[in-house]
């Protein structure tokens, strides 16, 4: 019989039975949904009370174009937003910066000043729509802009629900939008968490992402382990500032992927919820049950998809949606079938949204909580994943802890090693991929050419430059300079940077100017380049 392994590495048996779950203690390890340790889900009735939030990742070109796409998806039943920013914005460069050439509005929308965020959310009621901001190194100024837009819309601070990603450690590991060295980068993460915990109680000021690390090549167990290690690092950061764990932990959220083997993914989340609950309660002594809950966006991952016969990716997306639903997602987002070619077309976005809606409304996956509980296989797999995640956590400790592992580049090297191993398994056929390494048909090449692709509007860059020039001419230059000086002063001292950043944003200082004021104090990160 062919040997089959989980992506986490351990073998999968052909049959499971009662003997495989003999060590599982129902009350201690599983419990009831909505109760510690939340193995079965963080809410008692899960989707019977409220189905997952559907939140496609959207943003391209100018804020005006993105605003139109937001409204298109909301008109088709999407109930929340997840904003994609272009690379200059993510890296604190204005659209007129020479380094931004060719990248403005490409992989997300361009934001230079508060005026752009005002335009992006025009006509979208921020007291009713929750908005994720996929922003990390620049999370503090972009979230400040978001808070300022909400304020201008007349929304009370305690009605604002936003989730800036604000997870810089995973950027150092996987996604690459770091700017400053590790320590000041972590300080910015903590400043935003602290400010939001005090001023914006319904904001989720950090979304810890295993997602991008998995996309970069790590295993399922590593994805969860690294995510938990990063979360623990942020908790320690806030405790070191003198905050009580229950003052911020209830608003920590997560972002993970669910592509691959459906049951392994479900087991990963069940084990992850259990480990997180225990970590917060036992290690960090959190007393509020909300602090123990692993709340997660669960979504796809472009790496699940193939360039060959791209329509097959729609089917893969449906399985991801099912895995995410069975895993107990609070929020769902799917990659689109055309992502290996370009950024999503509106047709591809709508199909992804429809996929989630079909899963929610038609498939029955949302009818009852944690329907796989009690399966010999899934419970045994959950225990096996838990052990594997614990081993990966121990290996992070051997690297000196997650922050040191990031600084030295050891964890980046491990992720790259796993990515190469994965590729070799695809080449050998050990990891089958239909129409890629098995069942390869002659129709493949034809189908590739038929994908309807999004076409980048070259005029977007010019429009963005003109708008930035207009704002620079209209604003009170002296007020901007004074605000930027205060950002620099705060960066040199220990004051929470959110206060001067908010002031600068409201004076229409540009993102690039704010980033530069901090760059002059913090310097830039030097990557430990390792293969």
């Amino acid at each position: 019989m062919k040997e089959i392994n989980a992506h986490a590495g351990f073998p999968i048996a052909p049959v499971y039975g009662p003997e495989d779950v003999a060590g599982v203690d129902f009350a201690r390890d599983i419990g009831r949904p909505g109760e510690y340790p939340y193995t079965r889900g963080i809410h008692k009735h899960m989707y019977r009370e409220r189905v997952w939030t559907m939140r496609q990742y959207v943003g391209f070109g100018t804020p005006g174009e993105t605003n139109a796409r937001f409204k298109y998806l909301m008109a088709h039943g999407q109930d929340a937003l997840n904003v994609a920013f272009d690379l200059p914005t993510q890296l604190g460069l204005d659209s007129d910066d020479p380094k931004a050439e060719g990248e403005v509005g490409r992989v997300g929308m361009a934001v230079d000043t508060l005026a752009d965020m005002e335009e992006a959310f025009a006509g979208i009621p921020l007291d009713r729509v929750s908005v994720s901001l996929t922003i990390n190194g620049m999370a503090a100024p972009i979230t400040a802009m978001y808070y300022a837009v909400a304020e201008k819309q007349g929304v009370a601070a305690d009605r604002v629900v936003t989730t800036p990603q604000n997870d810089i450690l995973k950027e150092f590991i996987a996604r690459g939008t770091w700017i400053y060295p590790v320590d000041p980068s972590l300080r910015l993460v903590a400043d935003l968490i602290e400010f939001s915990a005090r001023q914006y109680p319904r904001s989720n000021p950090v979304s810890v992402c295993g997602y991008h690390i998995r996309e970069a090549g790590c295993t399922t167990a590593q994805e969860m382990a690294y995510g938990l290690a990063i979360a623990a690092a942020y908790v320690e950061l806030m405790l070191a500032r003198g905050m009580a764990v229950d003052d911020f932990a209830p608003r920590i959220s997560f972002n993970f992927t669910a592509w691959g083997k459906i049951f392994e993914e479900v087991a990963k989340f069940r084990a992850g919820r259990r480990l997180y609950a225990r970590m917060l309660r036992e290690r960090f002594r959190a007393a509020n049950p909300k602090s123990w809950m692993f709340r997660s966006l669960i979504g796809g991952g472009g790496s699940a998809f193939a360039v060959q016969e791209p329509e097959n990716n729609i089917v893969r997306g449906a399985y991801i949606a099912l895995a995410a639903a069975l895993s107990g997602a609070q929020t769902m987002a799917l990659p689109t079938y055309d992502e290996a070619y370009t950024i999503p077309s509106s047709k591809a976005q709508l199909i992804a949204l429809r996929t989630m809606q079909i899963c929610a409304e038609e498939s029955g996956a949302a009818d009852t909580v944690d329907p796989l509980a009690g399966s010999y296989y899934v419970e045994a797999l959950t225990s096996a994943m838990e052990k594997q995640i614990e081993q990966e956590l121990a290996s992070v400790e051997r690297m000196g802890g997650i922050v040191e592992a990031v600084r030295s580049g050891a964890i980046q090297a491990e992720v790259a090693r796993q990515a190469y191993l994965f590729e070799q398994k695809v080449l050998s056929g050990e990891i089958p991929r239909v129409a890629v390494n098995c069942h390869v048909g002659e129709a493949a090449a034809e189908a590739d050419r038929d994908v309807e692709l999004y076409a980048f509007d070259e005029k977007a860059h010019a429009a963005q430059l003109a708008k930035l020039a207009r704002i620079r001419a209209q604003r009170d230059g002296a007020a901007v300079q004074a605000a930027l000086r205060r950002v620099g002063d705060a960066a040199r001292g220990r004051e929470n940077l959110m206060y001067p950043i908010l002031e600068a944003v409201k004076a229409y200082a540009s993102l690039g100017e704010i980033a530069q004021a901090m760059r002059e104090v913090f310097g830039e990160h030097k990557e430990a380049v390792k293969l």
Partner: protein
Amino acid sequence: MKVLIAKPGLDGHDRGAKVVAHALRDAGFEVVYSGLKRTPEEIVAEAIQEDVDVVGLSVLSGAHLLLARRVVDALRAQDAADIAVVVGGIIPPRDVEALKQLGVRHVFPMGTPLPEIVKALKKEPQR
């Protein structure tokens, strides 16, 4: 044969670049990796200093046409046009020919099997 695998522009996705670098090394190439966010000028300077035969650019942000042109032009300006430039990443089919027009020797869009990349580079002349 010596290859510089480089990440030009602002894109931070380096999975593909690192996987290709590992595969080339296993296939007997000498491989240098630039790290993230290098400018075309920095990449060309490193290529010349390291005396490589091939520069492989990895771009997933959509800025491949501009960045590849910059690298090709800078190599010419430095009298190093005999260093072959190849490009990989998220490259829409319509841009493959445009890249070749710029002087890019090979384009390896998402989904190109590693052995194909190895085979193509082995055929490149050593400088």
